């Protein structure tokens, strides 16, 4: 079977991330931009499916050339081959234009795909749009928040969890299909250094001369949504009163603050 996993090269999830207060942009210096990806749950999911059913896993990413490094570590995890869709014309894409490039890359390079696997959402844009939009471009059914699946003939039996309703559901989908994998639902395997070292042999970079997409339908120009303004978020100023000392004293002061705020009296009625 042919599995495609869509992954975005992004900043790792850690408290090391800082925002420059002056420019409002992400501080990227010293951050191992490509060492980690948010989509490792999706990659693990696809690898497990391949290990069970045979076939291959193809990782696809749309990113600037630095995205290669992220794909290399996925190959180190066991992905069979990787395709980086990279072109200056793709820059500034919104989710419509991103899904456009991803879907066309799948159609051209993995036309016989059985299942496309994505992450739940990306850490830097958190839209959860790409999975559904890619499914729409490809004209196939889809399901989000999947944590387990099995193949029966030409159908996929997928289990998913809806966190806000606290509900588990089982669906049957006609394949080919697209699924997004529930965040933190898998235990991603280690990157094997020996395999990572041979990564370049399994990696292909395609630009728009190969994909042949209308320049007006990719990147910033091909995006139906446009960022027209950016303003610093305004939040209420804080008092910053420091309370320190012996725990007993500190507790007395905090209790007083809570009483003044009226949140202790409120309950005494309930007692």
């Amino acid at each position: 079977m042919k599995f495609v996993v869509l992954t975005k090269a992004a900043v790792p999830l850690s408290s090391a991330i800082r925002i420059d207060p002056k420019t409002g942009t992400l501080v990227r210096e010293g951050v191992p931009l490509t060492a980690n990806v948010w989509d490792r749950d999706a990659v693990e999911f696809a690898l497990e499916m391949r290990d069970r059913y045979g076939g291959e896993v193809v990782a696809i990413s749309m990113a600037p050339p630095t995205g290669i490094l992220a794909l290399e570590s996925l190959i180190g995890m066991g992905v069979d081959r990787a395709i980086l869709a990279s072109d200056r014309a793709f820059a500034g894409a919104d989710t419509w234009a991103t899904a456009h490039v991803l879907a066309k890359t799948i159609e051209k390079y993995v036309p016989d795909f059985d299942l496309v696997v994505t992450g739940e959402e990306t850490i830097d844009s958190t839209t959860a749009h790409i999975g559904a939009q890619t499914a729409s471009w490809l004209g196939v059914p889809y399901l989000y928040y999947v944590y387990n699946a099995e193949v029966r003939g030409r159908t996929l039996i997928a289990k998913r969890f809806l966190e806000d309703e606290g509900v588990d559901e089982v669906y049957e989908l006609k394949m080919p299909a697209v699924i997004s994998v529930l965040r933190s639902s898998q235990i991603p395997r280690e990157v094997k250094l020996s395999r990572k070292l041979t990564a370049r042999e399994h990696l292909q970079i395609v630009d728009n001369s190969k994909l042949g997409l209308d320049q007006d339908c990719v990147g910033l120009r091909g995006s139906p949504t446009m960022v027209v303004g950016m303003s610093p978020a305004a939040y209420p100023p804080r008092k910053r009163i420091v309370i320190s000392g012996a725990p007993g004293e500190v507790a007395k002061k905090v209790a007083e603050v809570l009483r003044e705020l009226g949140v202790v009296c409120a309950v005494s009625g309930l007692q």
Partner: protein
Amino acid sequence: MCSLWPPIDKSLYNGVWVYLERDGHKLKDVGLELLGKARELAAKLGGVEVGAVLVAAGRELAQEAIYHGADRVVLIENPELETYTPVEYAKAIATVVQKYKPEIFLIGATKRGRELAAYIANSLTTGITADCTALDVEPQTRDLHQIRPTFGGTQLAIIKTPHRRPQMASVRPGVFPKPPRDVGRVGEIVVERVEVERKTRLLARERRVEIDVDLPPVESSEVVVAGGRGLGSGEGFKLLAELAKLLGGTVGASLMAVRAGWVPHSRQIGQTGKTIRPKVYIAVGVSGAIQHIMGVMESKTIIAINPDPNAPIMKNADYAVVGDYKEIIPALLEELRKYLS
């Protein structure tokens, strides 16, 4: 202009419409909240129609939508659509939106809403902005300002969909207030039969029994006591729950505490969790990373308990309490009990 965008006549698109998600035989609040916002936007656009789309629901629910601000409700009818399935619902909704041509179409960003929204947008060859925290319109161009936090919540981006209609946005539950129910309101109910080609089927559905504290959800509490990695163990949350109970509140958590498995994800606060606006927010053993802070910025009062006086949370607090929670919270519980008795 992109050759794949079918030409449209923007002047044919009118009105502000909302998708209403059901929870069984009840409307989810988020849809009603959006109806309230839709009325406000419709007024700014010169009093255009407010519409609502409901799938496989009865007339009583359509009537509820009218009481909460809809002028017209389209009921999509088809026995095949009794139970929710993503691609079939998304296509059916897109078909109706295509027919009625609203200039704005809003969707609640519940888990199911997130699943549907982008597919609907793609089917209509239009753009969509996720998780808007504010919406406004420019009366001259009739463009919708889709406002969402970005760069870790330090900035607000204003996004438009200038060339396509409808303009679509999703909004999380609890962002806009629910409008009052006015039984005097009248509106029209239209039934549309939409055919679907079945590609997905629901086989089973079960409520998961989650191990959680017996306390209200974070988004509806006046007092939230949140714990982070600094608690050191799940045991720490028992202390926080005691404090929360004395204050008539609930417990929340940082992403690290959720990752550690001490509390379910439904209690996570921040960029990838819940945004809350309580009267009092108490952060215990939470460092105050920007992704966490952005979920509590609108709290009236913030109290932080942390041994590190330089932790970022201390600079974002009204009361920066320096110390070990294991010493402070038991003493605080004692003080409060003394006061209450």
